[in-house]
């Protein structure tokens, strides 16, 4: 039972990690606390659902289309909302992401109604017995794809020129712009990558949860995972996501499903009390 709970917790954990990564990328680059990240997941799921319904695209093509479309949407958000708010205080920026959350969610509700649409499983959802535990190929594929995305992200940030420019901007925007890096472009790219990550997470999560305008709630749990891992750390988002997925599933398995729903919040409060920087986060020193 214990091992089984951990394995199925890991699946959800990978989803939290992907959402959390999108959140941290935005936060590190632009210091915007984006509470609308969960809505990107919903939007990606709906785009995937629609493409699947009308064009019956093969999965890799579908996956790429959602990636590109949500990336473009992310750039749009940056251009419309956050470029004009460049000098706004942090609290205004948070409220702007709240506005975006409301716009995307109510827009989706107007277009698709309040129903839950079933998303046909891409991979075999039937459980197979491996040793003493049951694993579904669907969950294995989900974890493989998520891990692949994380590796690609790591390679991008570590080895490509643009990735290095983004890291430089994260550290010191002024210096980076003096070195000839277009900070504006870095901001747009951050929005693109983060939205695309959210979008493809939506495609991955859709066969498990179904597609509905209110599915963005998964984002709220992912934020707890981000705080657990460390607000300003990309590896932290991964570690936090995986840990929260497992902790939550253990709480659900040994206590009750109602407790499972609120585990994330108690983890969040506990982290803030014991170790506010999270597992892997670094302390930010206040400077004038």
């Amino acid at each position: 039972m214990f091992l089984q709970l951990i394995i199925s917790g890991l699946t959800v954990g990978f989803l939290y990690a992907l959402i959390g990564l999108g959140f941290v990328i935005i936060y590190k680059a632009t210091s915007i606390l984006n509470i609308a990240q969960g809505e990107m997941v919903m939007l990606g799921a709906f785009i995937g659902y629609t493409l699947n319904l009308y064009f019956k695209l093969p999965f890799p093509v579908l996956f790429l289309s959602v990636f590109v479309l949500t990336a473009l949407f992310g750039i749009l958000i940056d251009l419309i909302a956050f470029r004009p708010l460049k000098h706004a205080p942090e609290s205004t920026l948070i409220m702007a992401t709240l506005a975006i959350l409301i716009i995307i969610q109510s827009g989706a509700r107007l277009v698709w109604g309040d129903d839950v649409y079933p998303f046909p499983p891409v991979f075999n959802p039937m459980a197979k017995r491996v040793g003493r535990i049951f694993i579904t190929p669907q969950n294995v594929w989900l974890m493989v794809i998520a891990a692949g995305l994380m590796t690609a992200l790591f390679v991008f940030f570590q080895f490509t020129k643009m990735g290095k420019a983004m890291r430089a901007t994260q550290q010191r925007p002024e210096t980076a712009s003096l070195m000839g890096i277009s900070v504006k472009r870095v901001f747009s790219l951050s929005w693109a990558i983060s939205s695309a990550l959210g979008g493809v997470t939506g495609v991955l999560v859709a066969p498990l949860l179904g597609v509905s305008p209110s599915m963005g709630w998964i984002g709220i749990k992912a934020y707890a995972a981000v705080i657990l891992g460390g607000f300003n750390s990309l590896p932290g988002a991964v570690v936090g996501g995986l840990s929260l997925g497992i902790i939550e599933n253990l709480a659900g398995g040994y206590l009750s499903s109602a407790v499972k729903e609120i585990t994330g919040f108690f983890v969040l409060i506990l982290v803030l009390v014991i170790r506010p920087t999270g597992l892997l986060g670094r302390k930010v020193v206040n400077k004038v």
Partner: protein
Amino acid sequence: MKRVLTIAFTVWLLVLPLFLGRYHMYVVNLVGISIILALGLAVLTGFTGQISLGHAAFFGIGAYASALLTSKLAIPFWLSFPLGGILAALISLGIGLPALRIRGHYLALATLGFGQIIQLILIHWDSLTNGPRGLVVARPTLGGLKFSSDSSYYYIILIVSAFLTWFSWNLVRSRIGRTFISIRDSSVASASLGINLTRYKVVAFLLSSFFAGVAGGLYGPLVKFIDPLGFGLWQSALYLMMIVVGGMASIPGAIIGAVLLTVLPEILRGFAEYRELIYGIALLLCLIFIPNGIYGLFRDIGRKMKPNAIVVESPERVPSEKGTV
């Protein structure tokens, strides 16, 4: 002149029920409750610069606590609605203390989660809250007086909201209010002046939760029926919109926003389907184009007309340069 206007306005407020029908009185009562909520958020967000995305939860705690204290423990309404506010404030400590200790906007994320949790608890704690079926709330009585009509209940709401407006008006002009503003504008500078950041931020959060709880306690008897769906993220967002639209860092702004966003949906009934979308877009546009809200807009126009006037109050926010604080 100012005195005459104040007296005229007070008289107008007192005789208002004579001229308005039942439905209009109901809307006016809703406005009073929104004003209490918006004032609390103005203190927290407008003046102290912290964001709560779960204020509907405190509103809900106040509404449920007050209703349950009256129906289960037979505590009179006069005690139960302030107790609802106090309970909301006590619970806010549990989130505020851990989340406000640290620099950064942890409060936004913590309250976002908290709002969801409270809604879940209201739905699942069936034996206490009657779950998704909701609670029927009775109108209060005092001695032989029964406040069963909307125009008599109006006076209770009027007294409470007027008192809380007076209280916040004085609070933001006091030493504590100025401390809030200094924390918002530069936490580092405030800390170096010996201000205990955590303490003041927690006080602001505590006050705004108390306001929300009191508003909730008044809301139950007004609508006579409460259920968990009325206290979700959308409502929390709506209260934030009030202060953004009206003007974040000002008491009149909060009142303007509360009046507008409570009355407008009643007028625009035909667009109910598009309401959330319209509000979302309006919020974004306000943040971009009128960061000081409608009140700020008029104040700026007024100042331009009188260029030599000495500006005494300056509660509005100076845009901070990124990376300097």
